[in-house]
Protein backbone atom coordinates (compact mmCIF):
# COMPACT_ATOMS: atom_id res chain seq x y z
CA UNK A 1 0.00 0.00 0.00
CA UNK A 2 2.77 2.35 1.01
CA UNK A 3 4.69 1.44 -2.08
CA UNK A 4 1.70 2.15 -4.21
CA UNK A 5 1.27 5.52 -2.52
CA UNK A 6 4.87 6.36 -3.13
CA UNK A 7 4.60 5.43 -6.77
CA UNK A 8 1.47 7.45 -7.13
CA UNK A 9 2.94 10.50 -5.45
CA UNK A 10 6.14 10.35 -7.47
CA UNK A 11 4.19 9.71 -10.64
CA UNK A 12 1.97 12.65 -9.85
CA UNK A 13 4.92 14.90 -9.23
CA UNK A 14 6.56 13.73 -12.44
CA UNK A 15 3.41 14.46 -14.39
CA UNK A 16 3.04 17.91 -12.89
CA UNK A 17 6.65 18.84 -13.60
CA UNK A 18 6.48 17.36 -17.03
CA UNK A 19 3.47 19.47 -17.80
CA UNK A 20 5.19 22.51 -16.35
CA UNK A 21 8.29 21.95 -18.42
CA UNK A 22 6.23 21.34 -21.50
CA UNK A 23 4.33 24.53 -20.94
CA UNK A 24 7.51 26.47 -20.26
CA UNK A 25 9.13 25.24 -23.44
CA UNK A 26 6.20 26.57 -25.43
CA UNK A 27 5.62 29.71 -23.43
CA UNK A 28 9.26 30.81 -23.24
CA UNK A 29 10.38 29.60 -26.60
CA UNK A 30 13.40 31.53 -27.81
CA UNK A 31 13.18 32.58 -31.39
CA UNK A 32 16.74 32.11 -32.49
CA UNK A 33 18.00 32.61 -35.98
CA UNK A 34 17.12 29.67 -38.12
CA UNK A 35 19.97 27.24 -37.75
CA UNK A 36 20.62 27.24 -41.48
CA UNK A 37 21.29 30.98 -41.47
CA UNK A 38 23.68 30.60 -38.54
CA UNK A 39 25.49 27.76 -40.24
CA UNK A 40 25.67 29.68 -43.48
CA UNK A 41 27.24 32.57 -41.62
CA UNK A 42 30.00 30.26 -40.38
CA UNK A 43 30.84 28.88 -43.78
CA UNK A 44 33.50 30.69 -45.78
CA UNK A 45 31.19 31.51 -48.72
CA UNK A 46 33.66 30.39 -51.31
CA UNK A 47 30.74 28.59 -52.95
CA UNK A 48 33.30 26.05 -54.07
CA UNK A 49 31.10 23.02 -53.90
CA UNK A 50 33.88 20.81 -52.59
CA UNK A 51 31.50 19.53 -49.97
CA UNK A 52 29.40 18.00 -52.70
CA UNK A 53 26.71 20.65 -52.51
CA UNK A 54 26.24 23.39 -55.05
CA UNK A 55 27.15 26.17 -52.62
CA UNK A 56 27.55 27.17 -49.01
CA UNK A 57 23.89 27.67 -48.31
CA UNK A 58 22.89 24.21 -49.56
CA UNK A 59 25.61 22.67 -47.44
CA UNK A 60 24.42 24.66 -44.43
CA UNK A 61 20.94 23.28 -45.08
CA UNK A 62 22.39 19.79 -45.35
CA UNK A 63 24.32 20.11 -42.10
CA UNK A 64 21.17 21.29 -40.41
CA UNK A 65 19.54 18.13 -41.72
CA UNK A 66 22.27 15.95 -40.30
CA UNK A 67 25.01 15.94 -42.92
CA UNK A 68 28.60 15.49 -41.66
CA UNK A 69 30.14 18.74 -40.50
CA UNK A 70 33.64 18.07 -41.78
CA UNK A 71 33.22 18.57 -45.49
CA UNK A 72 34.14 22.20 -45.84
CA UNK A 73 37.70 22.19 -47.15
CA UNK A 74 38.23 25.96 -47.50
CA UNK A 75 36.92 26.59 -43.99
CA UNK A 76 39.27 24.02 -42.52
CA UNK A 77 39.49 23.06 -38.88
CA UNK A 78 38.32 26.45 -37.64
CA UNK A 79 35.02 26.25 -39.41
CA UNK A 80 34.50 22.65 -38.33
CA UNK A 81 35.08 23.69 -34.75
CA UNK A 82 32.59 26.51 -35.01
CA UNK A 83 29.97 24.30 -36.61
CA UNK A 84 30.57 21.67 -33.96
CA UNK A 85 30.02 24.32 -31.29
CA UNK A 86 26.84 25.50 -32.91
CA UNK A 87 25.45 22.07 -33.51
CA UNK A 88 26.62 20.69 -30.20
CA UNK A 89 28.48 17.80 -31.76
CA UNK A 90 32.00 16.48 -31.59
CA UNK A 91 34.70 18.13 -33.64
CA UNK A 92 35.69 15.86 -36.49
CA UNK A 93 38.84 16.02 -38.55
CA UNK A 94 38.45 17.40 -42.05
CA UNK A 95 37.16 14.81 -44.47
CA UNK A 96 40.12 14.51 -46.82
CA UNK A 97 38.05 13.13 -49.65
CA UNK A 98 36.51 16.54 -50.06
CA UNK A 99 39.78 18.33 -50.41
CA UNK A 100 40.52 19.18 -53.98
CA UNK A 101 43.98 20.24 -54.91
CA UNK A 102 45.92 22.07 -52.28
CA UNK A 103 43.35 24.58 -51.11
CA UNK A 104 43.33 23.21 -47.62
CA UNK A 105 47.07 22.92 -47.22
CA UNK A 106 48.08 26.43 -48.05
CA UNK A 107 48.12 29.16 -45.48
CA UNK A 108 48.10 32.03 -47.86
CA UNK A 109 44.90 32.69 -49.74
CA UNK A 110 44.94 31.77 -53.37
CA UNK A 111 43.14 33.10 -56.38
CA UNK A 112 42.68 31.65 -59.80
CA UNK A 113 44.89 32.96 -62.55
CA UNK A 114 44.27 32.51 -66.26
CA UNK A 115 47.35 32.08 -68.41
CA UNK A 116 46.01 34.37 -71.04
CA UNK A 117 48.05 33.25 -74.03
CA UNK A 118 46.68 29.73 -73.65
CA UNK A 119 43.06 30.74 -73.18
CA UNK A 120 40.91 29.66 -76.09
CA UNK A 121 37.87 31.58 -74.96
CA UNK A 122 35.64 28.59 -74.36
CA UNK A 123 33.67 30.26 -71.52
CA UNK A 124 33.61 27.01 -69.57
CA UNK A 125 35.26 28.61 -66.60
CA UNK A 126 32.78 31.47 -66.71
CA UNK A 127 29.98 28.99 -66.34
CA UNK A 128 31.77 27.20 -63.55
CA UNK A 129 32.50 30.28 -61.48
CA UNK A 130 30.00 30.47 -58.64
CA UNK A 131 30.50 34.16 -58.03
CA UNK A 132 30.86 35.46 -61.61
CA UNK A 133 34.42 36.50 -60.99
CA UNK A 134 35.57 35.70 -64.52
CA UNK A 135 34.98 38.05 -67.38
CA UNK A 136 35.33 37.22 -71.01
CA UNK A 137 33.24 36.22 -73.97
CA UNK A 138 33.23 33.35 -76.34
CA UNK A 139 36.40 33.38 -78.39
CA UNK A 140 37.66 36.20 -76.27
CA UNK A 141 40.40 35.86 -73.75
CA UNK A 142 39.05 35.53 -70.23
CA UNK A 143 40.40 37.08 -67.14
CA UNK A 144 39.74 36.86 -63.42
CA UNK A 145 38.62 39.68 -61.19
CA UNK A 146 41.05 39.00 -58.38
CA UNK A 147 39.05 40.93 -55.81
CA UNK A 148 36.00 38.80 -56.44
CA UNK A 149 37.68 35.42 -56.71
CA UNK A 150 37.04 33.25 -53.69
CA UNK A 151 39.77 30.80 -54.56
CA UNK A 152 37.29 27.94 -54.80
CA UNK A 153 39.24 26.37 -57.63
CA UNK A 154 36.06 25.28 -59.46
CA UNK A 155 37.19 26.86 -62.70
CA UNK A 156 40.40 24.84 -62.86
CA UNK A 157 38.88 21.50 -63.75
CA UNK A 158 36.57 22.60 -66.58
CA UNK A 159 39.33 24.37 -68.48
CA UNK A 160 40.03 22.23 -71.54
CA UNK A 161 43.52 23.61 -72.02
CA UNK A 162 44.60 23.75 -68.37
CA UNK A 163 45.30 27.43 -68.58
CA UNK A 164 43.90 28.21 -65.14
CA UNK A 165 46.04 27.78 -62.10
CA UNK A 166 45.68 28.73 -58.46
CA UNK A 167 48.24 31.28 -57.39
CA UNK A 168 49.02 32.66 -54.00
CA UNK A 169 48.35 36.32 -53.47
CA UNK A 170 51.87 37.74 -53.22
CA UNK A 171 52.96 39.31 -49.97
CA UNK A 172 53.40 43.06 -50.11
CA UNK A 173 53.85 45.66 -47.43
CA UNK A 174 50.14 46.34 -47.65
CA UNK A 175 48.98 42.88 -46.74
CA UNK A 176 52.00 41.91 -44.67
CA UNK A 177 51.25 41.01 -41.10
CA UNK A 178 53.25 40.66 -37.95
CA UNK A 179 53.94 37.09 -37.14
CA UNK A 180 55.57 36.15 -33.90
CA UNK A 181 57.08 32.90 -35.05
CA UNK A 182 58.66 34.11 -38.21
CA UNK A 183 60.07 37.53 -37.67
CA UNK A 184 61.75 37.70 -41.00
CA UNK A 185 65.50 37.55 -40.85
CA UNK A 186 66.73 38.10 -44.34
CA UNK A 187 70.16 38.03 -45.80
CA UNK A 188 70.45 40.82 -48.32
CA UNK A 189 73.46 40.87 -50.64
Amino acid at each position, binding site marked *: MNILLAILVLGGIAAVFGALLGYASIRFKVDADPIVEQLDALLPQTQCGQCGYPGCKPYAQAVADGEAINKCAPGGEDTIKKIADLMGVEVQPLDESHVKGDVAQSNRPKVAFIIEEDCIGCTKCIQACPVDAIIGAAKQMHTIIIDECTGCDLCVAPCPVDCIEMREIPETIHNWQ*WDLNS*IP*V*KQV*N
Partner: protein
Amino acid sequence: MAFWIASSPHNHNHTKTPNLMRLVILATIPGVFAQWYFFGWGNLIHIGLAMITALLSEFIVLSLRKKPIAHHLLDGSGLLTALLIGICLPALTPWWISVIGTLFAIVIVKQLYGGLGHNPFNPAMAGYVMLLVSFPIQMTLWQPPLSLLTVDLNFANTLTTILTGFTVEGYSVEQVRTSIDGITMATPLDTLKTNLGLGFTVLETITSPVFGENFSLGWEWVNAGFLLGGLFLLTKKAIAWQTPVSFLLSIFVCSFIGYSINPDANPSTMFHWFSGATMLGAFFILTDPVTGATSNKGRLIVGALAGLLVYLIRTLGGYPDGVAFAVLLCNMSAPLIDQYTRPRTYGHAKGEK
Protein backbone atom coordinates in the same frame (compact mmCIF):
# COMPACT_ATOMS: atom_id res chain seq x y z
CA MET B 1 74.62 43.00 -44.99
CA ALA B 2 71.74 41.84 -42.86
CA PHE B 3 70.82 43.01 -39.45
CA TRP B 4 69.27 41.40 -36.49
CA ILE B 5 65.52 41.81 -36.48
CA ALA B 6 63.26 41.90 -33.49
CA SER B 7 59.94 43.34 -32.53
CA SER B 8 59.62 46.57 -30.62
CA PRO B 9 60.07 47.59 -27.87
CA HIS B 10 63.75 46.86 -28.10
CA ASN B 11 64.55 47.93 -24.60
CA HIS B 12 63.52 46.37 -21.34
CA ASN B 13 63.85 47.42 -17.75
CA HIS B 14 65.63 44.15 -16.96
CA THR B 15 63.19 42.99 -14.32
CA LYS B 16 62.71 39.27 -14.22
CA THR B 17 60.25 37.06 -12.44
CA PRO B 18 62.95 35.03 -10.63
CA ASN B 19 64.41 38.28 -9.31
CA LEU B 20 61.02 39.27 -8.04
CA MET B 21 60.64 35.94 -6.28
CA ARG B 22 64.11 36.24 -4.78
CA LEU B 23 63.26 39.68 -3.48
CA VAL B 24 60.13 38.38 -1.79
CA ILE B 25 62.10 35.51 -0.24
CA LEU B 26 64.67 37.98 1.06
CA ALA B 27 61.95 40.16 2.52
CA THR B 28 60.77 37.34 4.76
CA ILE B 29 64.10 37.35 6.62
CA PRO B 30 63.09 39.76 9.44
CA GLY B 31 59.94 37.79 10.17
CA VAL B 32 61.70 34.44 10.00
CA PHE B 33 64.42 35.79 12.22
CA ALA B 34 61.86 36.89 14.81
CA GLN B 35 60.25 33.49 14.56
CA TRP B 36 63.59 31.84 15.21
CA TYR B 37 64.34 34.18 18.07
CA PHE B 38 61.07 33.61 19.88
CA PHE B 39 60.12 30.09 18.86
CA GLY B 40 63.38 28.38 18.13
CA TRP B 41 64.48 26.17 15.26
CA GLY B 42 61.21 24.45 14.49
CA ASN B 43 60.05 26.60 11.65
CA LEU B 44 63.51 26.80 10.13
CA ILE B 45 63.66 23.01 10.04
CA HIS B 46 60.25 22.88 8.43
CA ILE B 47 61.26 25.52 5.92
CA GLY B 48 64.26 23.41 4.98
CA LEU B 49 62.18 20.26 4.70
CA ALA B 50 59.55 22.02 2.62
CA MET B 51 62.11 23.53 0.29
CA ILE B 52 63.79 20.20 -0.39
CA THR B 53 60.41 18.61 -1.01
CA ALA B 54 59.37 21.45 -3.26
CA LEU B 55 62.49 21.23 -5.41
CA LEU B 56 62.32 17.46 -5.71
CA SER B 57 58.62 17.27 -6.45
CA GLU B 58 58.75 20.15 -8.89
CA PHE B 59 61.69 18.52 -10.64
CA ILE B 60 59.76 15.30 -11.05
CA VAL B 61 56.58 16.95 -12.26
CA LEU B 62 58.43 19.20 -14.67
CA SER B 63 60.26 16.28 -16.18
CA LEU B 64 56.96 14.40 -16.49
CA ARG B 65 55.41 17.44 -18.13
CA LYS B 66 58.44 17.70 -20.42
CA LYS B 67 59.07 21.31 -19.52
CA PRO B 68 62.47 22.99 -19.44
CA ILE B 69 63.44 22.04 -15.93
CA ALA B 70 66.21 24.47 -15.07
CA HIS B 71 64.18 27.38 -16.35
CA HIS B 72 61.15 26.66 -14.19
CA LEU B 73 62.85 25.14 -11.20
CA LEU B 74 65.02 28.15 -10.61
CA ASP B 75 62.33 30.78 -10.98
CA GLY B 76 62.00 30.76 -7.18
CA SER B 77 58.26 30.36 -7.07
CA GLY B 78 58.42 26.83 -5.70
CA LEU B 79 60.91 27.85 -3.05
CA LEU B 80 58.70 30.75 -2.04
CA THR B 81 55.73 28.44 -1.65
CA ALA B 82 57.79 26.07 0.47
CA LEU B 83 59.06 28.96 2.56
CA LEU B 84 55.56 30.20 3.27
CA ILE B 85 54.38 26.70 4.22
CA GLY B 86 57.36 26.31 6.54
CA ILE B 87 56.63 29.65 8.18
CA CYS B 88 52.96 28.85 8.72
CA LEU B 89 53.30 25.39 10.21
CA PRO B 90 53.30 24.84 13.98
CA ALA B 91 56.94 24.52 14.91
CA LEU B 92 56.80 21.11 16.54
CA THR B 93 54.54 19.38 14.06
CA PRO B 94 55.92 16.14 12.64
CA TRP B 95 58.18 16.27 9.57
CA TRP B 96 55.75 14.53 7.26
CA ILE B 97 53.28 17.35 7.71
CA SER B 98 55.48 19.78 5.89
CA VAL B 99 56.40 17.18 3.28
CA ILE B 100 52.77 16.30 2.54
CA GLY B 101 51.73 19.94 2.61
CA THR B 102 54.44 20.95 0.17
CA LEU B 103 53.78 18.01 -2.11
CA PHE B 104 50.12 18.93 -2.24
CA ALA B 105 50.91 22.59 -2.83
CA ILE B 106 53.47 22.04 -5.57
CA VAL B 107 52.16 19.01 -7.38
CA ILE B 108 48.43 19.42 -7.15
CA VAL B 109 47.71 23.07 -6.55
CA LYS B 110 50.46 24.47 -8.74
CA GLN B 111 51.73 22.09 -11.38
CA LEU B 112 48.57 20.17 -12.15
CA TYR B 113 46.87 23.45 -12.93
CA GLY B 114 49.62 24.33 -15.37
CA GLY B 115 52.46 25.64 -13.27
CA LEU B 116 53.38 29.16 -12.32
CA GLY B 117 50.86 31.67 -13.50
CA HIS B 118 48.02 29.22 -14.01
CA ASN B 119 47.16 28.14 -10.48
CA PRO B 120 43.85 29.57 -9.31
CA PHE B 121 44.74 29.16 -5.62
CA ASN B 122 47.71 30.24 -3.63
CA PRO B 123 49.65 26.94 -3.36
CA ALA B 124 51.02 27.62 0.11
CA MET B 125 47.65 28.48 1.57
CA ALA B 126 45.89 25.64 -0.22
CA GLY B 127 48.51 23.26 1.18
CA TYR B 128 48.11 24.74 4.63
CA VAL B 129 44.33 24.46 4.56
CA MET B 130 44.55 20.90 3.33
CA LEU B 131 46.80 20.06 6.29
CA LEU B 132 44.59 21.92 8.72
CA VAL B 133 41.52 20.06 7.59
CA SER B 134 43.18 16.66 7.26
CA PHE B 135 45.50 16.64 10.26
CA PRO B 136 43.85 18.86 12.87
CA ILE B 137 45.81 17.40 15.79
CA GLN B 138 49.24 17.80 14.27
CA MET B 139 48.33 21.20 12.95
CA THR B 140 47.48 22.57 16.36
CA LEU B 141 50.75 21.54 17.96
CA TRP B 142 51.57 25.19 18.41
CA GLN B 143 54.68 25.79 20.33
CA PRO B 144 54.66 28.59 22.90
CA PRO B 145 57.51 31.08 22.87
CA LEU B 146 60.80 29.73 24.14
CA SER B 147 60.73 31.98 27.19
CA LEU B 148 57.64 30.20 28.48
CA LEU B 149 58.99 26.72 27.97
CA THR B 150 60.22 24.49 30.72
CA VAL B 151 62.19 22.43 28.29
CA ASP B 152 65.30 23.82 26.71
CA LEU B 153 64.35 23.54 23.06
CA ASN B 154 67.68 23.68 21.28
CA PHE B 155 68.30 22.69 17.67
CA ALA B 156 68.85 18.99 18.40
CA ASN B 157 65.79 18.81 20.61
CA THR B 158 63.63 20.49 18.01
CA LEU B 159 64.92 18.26 15.26
CA THR B 160 64.25 15.05 17.14
CA THR B 161 60.82 16.32 18.18
CA ILE B 162 59.92 16.98 14.58
CA LEU B 163 61.35 13.69 13.37
CA THR B 164 60.28 11.39 16.19
CA GLY B 165 57.83 13.30 18.35
CA PHE B 166 60.16 13.36 21.35
CA THR B 167 63.04 15.55 22.44
CA VAL B 168 66.46 14.10 23.05
CA GLU B 169 65.62 13.91 26.74
CA GLY B 170 62.42 12.06 25.95
CA TYR B 171 59.80 14.73 26.48
CA SER B 172 56.80 14.41 24.25
CA VAL B 173 55.40 17.32 22.27
CA GLU B 174 52.56 17.67 24.72
CA GLN B 175 54.99 17.88 27.59
CA VAL B 176 56.97 20.52 25.80
CA ARG B 177 53.86 22.58 25.28
CA THR B 178 52.77 22.34 28.87
CA SER B 179 53.55 25.36 30.98
CA ILE B 180 54.89 25.40 34.53
CA ASP B 181 51.40 25.47 35.95
CA GLY B 182 50.44 22.40 33.98
CA ILE B 183 48.30 24.02 31.31
CA THR B 184 48.88 23.24 27.66
CA MET B 185 49.69 26.46 25.95
CA ALA B 186 48.31 27.45 22.59
CA THR B 187 48.65 30.49 20.42
CA PRO B 188 47.18 33.70 21.73
CA LEU B 189 44.38 33.56 19.16
CA ASP B 190 43.59 29.99 20.12
CA THR B 191 43.65 30.78 23.81
CA LEU B 192 41.42 33.76 23.31
CA LYS B 193 38.92 31.79 21.29
CA THR B 194 38.79 29.01 23.86
CA ASN B 195 38.48 31.37 26.77
CA LEU B 196 35.83 33.53 25.17
CA GLY B 197 33.95 30.37 24.48
CA LEU B 198 34.25 29.47 28.11
CA GLY B 199 32.73 32.80 29.11
CA PHE B 200 35.83 34.73 30.06
CA THR B 201 36.26 38.30 28.97
CA VAL B 202 39.11 39.51 26.83
CA LEU B 203 40.66 41.32 29.76
CA GLU B 204 40.65 38.20 31.85
CA THR B 205 42.11 36.19 29.01
CA ILE B 206 45.02 38.36 28.14
CA THR B 207 46.49 37.89 31.55
CA SER B 208 47.59 34.51 30.26
CA PRO B 209 51.35 34.38 29.77
CA VAL B 210 51.09 33.71 26.04
CA PHE B 211 49.87 37.26 25.56
CA GLY B 212 52.98 38.73 27.03
CA GLU B 213 53.20 42.40 27.79
CA ASN B 214 51.71 43.80 24.65
CA PHE B 215 49.39 41.78 22.48
CA SER B 216 50.86 38.38 22.08
CA LEU B 217 54.27 37.30 23.20
CA GLY B 218 56.59 36.57 20.31
CA TRP B 219 53.88 36.75 17.69
CA GLU B 220 53.83 40.51 17.78
CA TRP B 221 57.49 40.57 16.85
CA VAL B 222 57.09 38.01 14.17
CA ASN B 223 54.33 40.13 12.72
CA ALA B 224 56.45 43.21 13.07
CA GLY B 225 59.20 41.40 11.19
CA PHE B 226 56.89 40.59 8.33
CA LEU B 227 55.58 44.14 8.37
CA LEU B 228 59.13 45.35 7.97
CA GLY B 229 59.75 42.94 5.12
CA GLY B 230 56.49 44.01 3.55
CA LEU B 231 57.40 47.67 3.73
CA PHE B 232 60.70 46.80 2.08
CA LEU B 233 58.80 45.11 -0.74
CA LEU B 234 56.56 48.14 -1.07
CA THR B 235 59.51 50.48 -1.41
CA LYS B 236 60.95 48.14 -4.02
CA LYS B 237 57.57 48.17 -5.77
CA ALA B 238 57.68 44.40 -5.83
CA ILE B 239 54.14 44.22 -4.54
CA ALA B 240 51.16 46.46 -5.05
CA TRP B 241 50.31 48.62 -2.05
CA GLN B 242 46.57 48.33 -2.51
CA THR B 243 46.16 44.80 -1.20
CA PRO B 244 48.00 45.05 2.15
CA VAL B 245 46.70 48.52 2.87
CA SER B 246 43.07 47.67 2.27
CA PHE B 247 43.48 44.34 4.07
CA LEU B 248 44.96 45.90 7.20
CA LEU B 249 42.51 48.76 7.11
CA SER B 250 39.64 46.36 6.75
CA ILE B 251 40.80 44.32 9.77
CA PHE B 252 41.33 47.52 11.67
CA VAL B 253 37.87 48.83 10.91
CA CYS B 254 36.16 45.52 11.65
CA SER B 255 37.96 44.96 14.92
CA PHE B 256 37.48 48.60 15.88
CA ILE B 257 33.75 48.30 15.42
CA GLY B 258 33.71 45.06 17.39
CA TYR B 259 35.90 46.45 20.11
CA SER B 260 33.90 49.63 20.51
CA ILE B 261 30.62 47.71 20.71
CA ASN B 262 31.77 45.09 23.12
CA PRO B 263 35.34 45.34 24.41
CA ASP B 264 34.82 42.32 26.63
CA ALA B 265 34.20 39.91 23.83
CA ASN B 266 36.42 41.49 21.18
CA PRO B 267 40.15 42.00 21.33
CA SER B 268 41.71 45.27 20.31
CA THR B 269 42.59 46.33 16.79
CA MET B 270 46.30 46.02 17.38
CA PHE B 271 45.86 42.52 18.73
CA HIS B 272 44.31 41.57 15.42
CA TRP B 273 47.11 43.24 13.54
CA PHE B 274 49.95 41.71 15.48
CA SER B 275 48.81 38.19 16.13
CA GLY B 276 48.40 35.16 13.97
CA ALA B 277 49.35 35.46 10.36
CA THR B 278 48.00 38.95 9.74
CA MET B 279 51.16 40.61 8.47
CA LEU B 280 52.38 37.54 6.63
CA GLY B 281 49.03 37.36 4.92
CA ALA B 282 48.92 41.05 4.17
CA PHE B 283 52.32 41.35 2.53
CA PHE B 284 53.33 37.90 1.39
CA ILE B 285 50.26 35.85 0.69
CA LEU B 286 47.46 38.12 -0.45
CA THR B 287 49.91 39.96 -2.66
CA ASP B 288 50.61 36.82 -4.65
CA PRO B 289 49.84 38.28 -8.06
CA VAL B 290 48.96 34.98 -9.71
CA THR B 291 45.95 34.31 -7.54
CA GLY B 292 44.95 37.85 -6.70
CA ALA B 293 43.08 40.51 -8.55
CA THR B 294 44.97 42.41 -11.22
CA SER B 295 43.28 45.78 -11.36
CA ASN B 296 43.97 48.35 -8.68
CA LYS B 297 40.35 48.62 -7.74
CA GLY B 298 40.13 44.85 -7.67
CA ARG B 299 43.09 44.65 -5.32
CA LEU B 300 41.45 47.08 -2.94
CA ILE B 301 38.29 45.00 -2.95
CA VAL B 302 40.16 41.75 -2.49
CA GLY B 303 42.13 43.18 0.42
CA ALA B 304 39.03 44.52 2.12
CA LEU B 305 37.17 41.27 1.56
CA ALA B 306 40.06 39.27 2.99
CA GLY B 307 40.21 41.52 6.04
CA LEU B 308 36.53 41.10 6.66
CA LEU B 309 36.76 37.34 6.23
CA VAL B 310 39.73 37.07 8.57
CA TYR B 311 37.91 39.02 11.21
CA LEU B 312 34.74 37.01 10.83
CA ILE B 313 36.55 33.69 10.96
CA ARG B 314 38.57 34.75 13.97
CA THR B 315 35.56 35.94 15.92
CA LEU B 316 32.77 33.74 14.66
CA GLY B 317 34.40 30.79 12.91
CA GLY B 318 35.59 27.49 14.25
CA TYR B 319 39.27 28.14 13.65
CA PRO B 320 41.36 30.55 15.70
CA ASP B 321 42.99 32.16 12.65
CA GLY B 322 41.37 32.65 9.29
CA VAL B 323 44.02 34.08 6.99
CA ALA B 324 44.43 30.88 4.97
CA PHE B 325 40.72 30.43 4.48
CA ALA B 326 40.20 34.07 3.71
CA VAL B 327 42.96 33.93 1.10
CA LEU B 328 41.45 30.90 -0.61
CA LEU B 329 38.02 32.49 -0.66
CA CYS B 330 39.48 35.65 -2.12
CA ASN B 331 41.38 33.63 -4.72
CA MET B 332 38.06 32.22 -5.82
CA SER B 333 36.44 35.58 -6.10
CA ALA B 334 39.40 37.37 -7.69
CA PRO B 335 38.51 36.60 -11.33
CA LEU B 336 34.98 37.78 -10.74
CA ILE B 337 36.21 40.92 -9.04
CA ASP B 338 38.57 41.51 -11.94
CA GLN B 339 35.71 41.12 -14.33
CA TYR B 340 33.80 43.93 -12.67
CA THR B 341 36.66 46.28 -11.90
CA ARG B 342 38.10 46.76 -15.33
CA PRO B 343 39.41 50.27 -15.60
CA ARG B 344 37.87 52.69 -18.04
CA THR B 345 39.94 52.65 -21.20
CA TYR B 346 41.21 55.94 -22.54
CA GLY B 347 38.65 57.49 -24.82
CA HIS B 348 35.77 55.34 -23.63
CA ALA B 349 32.87 56.74 -21.70
CA LYS B 350 32.33 55.46 -18.20
CA GLY B 351 30.40 52.23 -17.97
CA GLU B 352 31.06 51.49 -21.60
CA LYS B 353 32.91 48.22 -21.71
